């Protein structure tokens, strides 16, 4: 029984589903750069481009989990570099709170990530995704917010 459970959680078998909200100006451009540099990272994360990390409403994140995401990434410009000056500062505050809340109800903190990836940080983007997916593999499927219909 235990072995079976362990096997189920085997990193090989479980492919986490990830949604990555990328701001148009930095992180999306950074992920483009990762592509241009032909870096390799796991294919688990589907990017959704948004204008600014500041536009990511907490409900987007929660909804992604509800629809079955095992992990959610929000990525924006480094503080001070926001194309819209301060959008990422608002995002940071909001997302800090979302993360605390997720943590509080017992969602593993590693299921949710925020990162700053600039347009020049293709390598960092690849690393963030790789690292995130590895974390998620170890965690197994997300069940708490996923709708069972």
């Amino acid at each position: 029984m235990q072995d079976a459970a362990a096997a189920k959680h085997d990193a090989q078998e479980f492919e986490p589903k990830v949604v990555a909200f990328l701001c148009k100006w930095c992180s999306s451009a950074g992920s483009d750069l990762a592509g241009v540099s032909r870096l390799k990272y796991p294919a688990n994360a589907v990017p959704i481009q948004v204008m600014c990390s500041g536009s990511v409403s907490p409900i987007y994140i929660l909804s992604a989990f509800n629809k079955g995401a095992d992990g959610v990434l929000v990525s924006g410009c480094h503080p001070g570099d926001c194309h819209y000056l301060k959008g990422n500062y608002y995002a940071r505050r909001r997302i800090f709170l979302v993360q605390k809340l997720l943590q509080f109800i017992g969602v593993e903190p590693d299921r949710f990530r925020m990162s700053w990836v600039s347009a020049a940080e293709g390598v960092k983007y690849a690393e963030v995704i790789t690292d995130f997916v590895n974390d998620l593999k170890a965690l197994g499927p997300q069940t708490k917010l996923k709708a069972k219909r």
Partner: protein
Amino acid sequence: MTRRAGVFVCHCGTNIAATVDVKRVAAELARDAGVVFSNDYVYMCSDPGQQSVIDAIREHNLDSVVISCCSPNLHEKTFREASSQGGLNPFQCEIANIREQCAWVHKDRDEATTKAVKITRSAVERARRNQPLTPIGLPVTRKVMVIGGGIAGIQSALDLANAGLDVVLVEKQPTIGGHMIQLSETFPTLDCSQCILSPKMVEVSKHPKITLMTSSEVTSVSGFVGNFKIKVHTKAQYVDPDKCKLCDDCTAVCPVVVPNEYDVGLNDRRAIFIPFAQAIPASYYLDPESCLGLNPVVCGKCANVCEADAIDYDAKPKDSEIDVGAIVVATGFDLYAKDKMAEYGGGKYPDVLDGIQFERMCSASGPTGGQVLRPSDHEEPKTVVFVQCSGSRDPAQHCVYCSKICCMYTAKHATLYKHHVPNGRAYVFYIDIRSGGKGYEEFVQRAMERDGVIYLRGRVSKIYQSKGKLKVLGVDTLAGKNVEIDADMVVLAQAMVPSKGTTEVAKALKIGRDKDGFLAEAHPKLRPVESVTGGIFLTGAAQAPKDIPETVCQASAAASKVIALLSKPELEHSPVVARVRESHCTGCEMCVDVCPFEAITLVEGKAHVNEVLCEGCGTCVGTCVRAAIDVKNVTQLQVFEMLEACMGGE
């Protein structure tokens, strides 16, 4: 929502096709509800590729189009244009990036294909709910207001006027010139400041395209880029500049004597006076504050003697409303108040001067006629201590930032001192020397080596008066010992802070300021002369401490931005802007608080987006808890549908 979407999957040669099974992507999408056409092609961006989009739109009556290809940064424009040739609104075309974000970064063909399907599907969901949009066109007023008549404002105004634009130059003081007119010589070349500035000032006054408004301030602004309405308040002009003959008769009879602010108190003036000989407008000026009464019964001496009949005690202040298309803010700096430096005896001892005072002293037109004399006893100081970073780089008590120019002007001051008093001793206390700039390092080296200025690395801890001398206590960190200097005079290189006028104008224009109070630029690297508000530009020391060459650069840069902006008869603004659902908005103003572009105001208790100012960043969307605001074509519904598409699949 559209019902007839078309999907075009690009092989990009083998760039995409090598990793992604493009045929499968096209086939899977073909099954989706609302997709009526789905195909793949080797190079979508090629002419035949684009033509196939155009043809398919016509043939299959497509109402939205998704191209699954490379980054939208590369070909979004291409395909949107192709779509509009096909008869679609360009905004009904979306790009799914399956190259940079998929094919190029994955190895496993199956995984990459699955992801490509999801990316494409979410693009379809988005495209299907895109509204057709047209860029917002707005007429422009081809007139510019420049606020602040220092070198920054003067330069901008001249550049703009020479480009054929009408310019209104608004200056708070009775004359333009700003701080530069107070300087004696300028580093690194030591040419006379007034000599290089005065011709420009005259040019301003003579230029047919420039309207000069002195003693004037902006009180409020409405409107937006291309169409500002500005209210300007002009103080009463008791002396008519057109009549004034500059004869000086009035000054001669005026009984009032007050400190002269242009000489920073080193000198006196009358209640009616000319700030300095080169003042523009070239006219005497009656200071109502010190005048005995603006009432002939009380005094009336000056009007009596004025043969030109230029003086009118009954003059009234004036309010005007001016329409302009763009604004350049050049309201400059102030020196960090000397008396805030109690530890250095600033404001307490007359012989502790600030930089501008020293400039005035060195200036041939200054209070001492260009001689360096102690204010207290008009003796020539034998030992002068210059203190750099006075108030700068001191996060604990004063300003955190580096004022950037003090190293240079201190070197200049020490040099000038040595030129005036060759046998005097000049000490400079410094933390480091920041002399980046053409010829700057050489200038400092010359001060040290040729002019024998003694540079001591370390901070001054205290200055106090003792036995007619100013005792300067400090450390020489290089020598590792305390130093104590008996100085005759001390010059504090006070930090530069945003001028009071800058603070006021920021408020009136509703433009942001940075943490230090300087005007905030739209982007610190890429848009350094633009404010966050479209159509308002920044220049000079109001934006950050800077020297004259840099100020002039920025002034011309701002001017060229304005010229570019106003070169079109109509401005085009992206239609991807926020829209409020009034039924849901409760007027809580949170969006108003967060909008980086001040695009939202409350109108009758509901948020109202000024589409011209909105940049479509969506910060408001992320903030509004009532889901009452959305950015067109990136609506919450679209994000929801995209999420569903990303998560779906069996």
